[in-house]
């Protein structure tokens, strides 16, 4: 079982991991005065119960699977921007020293950092990079490239959000010499993807000939050229509603606190998560890998 290996690997660099696990998991505390050896045997079961919170079409059941899923998306994004920076068809727009090239290079650097971080966290369990990513016509024109970029970034935000509740919040592995909380790191990547999405949307708005009339946030489920599935519902839809969702926690927010808000405003105020099956299907619909 992978979990035993995770615990074992973590314990090599973080001898106190078992202490923390035993203090935090009520399932273990309930056993009362147990030996460390027994705790060690029981820990994977306790962590496993946290993993089992996966619902519906979420098919990821352990930390390594979640990290490898994230790694695949980061491989894809990194390669997408690397190909864009080298594409002759985009050279006239991504000129050396331009703000546009600077932004795309910055995003590419972030994706590379994410790849390296996830590989370090996975160690030998890291899946290899796919042999190639074929993005089809994505680089044919500058506006087309930005539309694809928006689709990948908005999907990336939804993908990380969809896993937030699957990642055990008490897993604190040592990555690159630092003890980190896995959930915190995932959210630190999640918000960076959101900053990327916001800026790509800003760049689309600023392109020549009027640009795309949209802001950095998602209005209704409008893709403005990006595939509709990027903004649609996942599975199950009750857990992963479309981005046009205006109801949160049972409350329809178009009329609240004595004020009324438009459907557009409410949809913008919340980003929605997506299950991993839907995310990978979206990726495979536009990328061959």
């Amino acid at each position: 079982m992978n979990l035993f290996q995770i615990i074992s690997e973590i314990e090599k660099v973080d001898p106190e991991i078992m202490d923390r696990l035993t203090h935090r998991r009520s399932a273990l505390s309930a056993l009362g005065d147990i030996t460390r050896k027994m705790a060690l045997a029981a820990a994977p079961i306790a962590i496993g119960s946290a993993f089992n919170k996966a619902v519906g079409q979420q098919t990821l059941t352990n930390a390594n699977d979640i990290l490898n899923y994230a790694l695949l998306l980061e491989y894809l994004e990194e390669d997408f921007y690397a190909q864009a920076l080298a594409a002759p068809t985009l050279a006239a727009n991504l000129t050396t020293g331009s703000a546009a090239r600077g932004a795309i290079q910055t995003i590419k650097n972030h994706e590379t950092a994410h790849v390296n971080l996830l590989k370090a966290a996975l160690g030998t369990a890291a899946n290899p990079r796919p042999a190639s990513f074929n993005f089809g016509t994505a680089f044919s024109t500058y506006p087309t490239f930005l539309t694809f970029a928006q689709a990948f970034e908005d999907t990336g935000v939804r993908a990380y959000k969809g896993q937030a509740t699957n990642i055990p919040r008490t897993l604190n592995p040592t990555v690159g010499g630092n003890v980190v909380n896995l959930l915190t790191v995932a959210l630190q990547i999640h918000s960076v993807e959101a900053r990327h999405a916001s800026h790509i949307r800003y760049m689309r708005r600023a392109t020549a000939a009027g640009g795309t009339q949209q802001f950095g946030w998602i209005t209704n489920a409008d893709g403005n050229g990006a595939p509709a599935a990027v903004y649609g519902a996942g599975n199950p839809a009750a857990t992963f509603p479309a981005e046009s969702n205006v109801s949160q926690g049972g409350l329809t927010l178009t009329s609240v606190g004595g004020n009324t808000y438009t459907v557009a405003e409410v949809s913008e105020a919340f980003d929605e998560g997506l299950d991993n099956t839907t995310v990978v299907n979206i990726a495979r619909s536009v990328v061959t890998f």
Partner: protein
Amino acid sequence: MHDNSFLARTLHRRSFFRVAGAGAAASALVLAGCAKEDTITPVPTNQQLVIGKADSVNFTVLNYAYLLEQLEAAFYDKVVTTPPADLLPGELAYLTDLRDHEFIHREYLKFALGSNAYDASFVTQFVFDFSSLTLTTRQGVWTAAQKLEDIGVAAYNGVAKHITTTGYLNMLAKLASVEARHAALAHEVLQAGSWAAPIGATGLDAAKTPIEVVALIQPFVPIEISTAYLPTT
């Protein structure tokens, strides 16, 4: 179990005895807690804003998020009501969108907390103090917006690990990425090319503890914020 151990830690804090709830319910709870341990009657020499509850880390985190959203909403409300004269074309539309999003976040959290909201029993709500900010110029407004949005992102990233229910964690994540979208814009409009300024070579956004965040927002809150119930990591 987690909540109980948190309470135990809280009870050992010396500062706990200084806590006097701004809300009557919170005060009663604090006094009851003290009576168990000690017969000394605490004297509320300085009133404090008690965020959250001793027996629920989830309601504490939600109240913490509620305070942050209240702060952002009040900020954009003030700016949109009296915008600086030198705003560039289109900037008021951005600020209005930001205000509306924060209003909706605030109202959602207020609803989700119900009677557990830290200010549910307040007779009068305090007024946020923005006197330390320059809100008469676009430079000042966008600089402040950057600061508040970056704080929001770092606060949510840092506190998420303490939430014990998937529903509330999911909710926080839904808000966090919208704050990040706001933050990127707030940086870029003021200085082209600066949208990613807070992100270092690690490719990671900041994650701050509630204690760190409280220190950053205290200048805007006219009552001392008690950190008694807030997670310390």
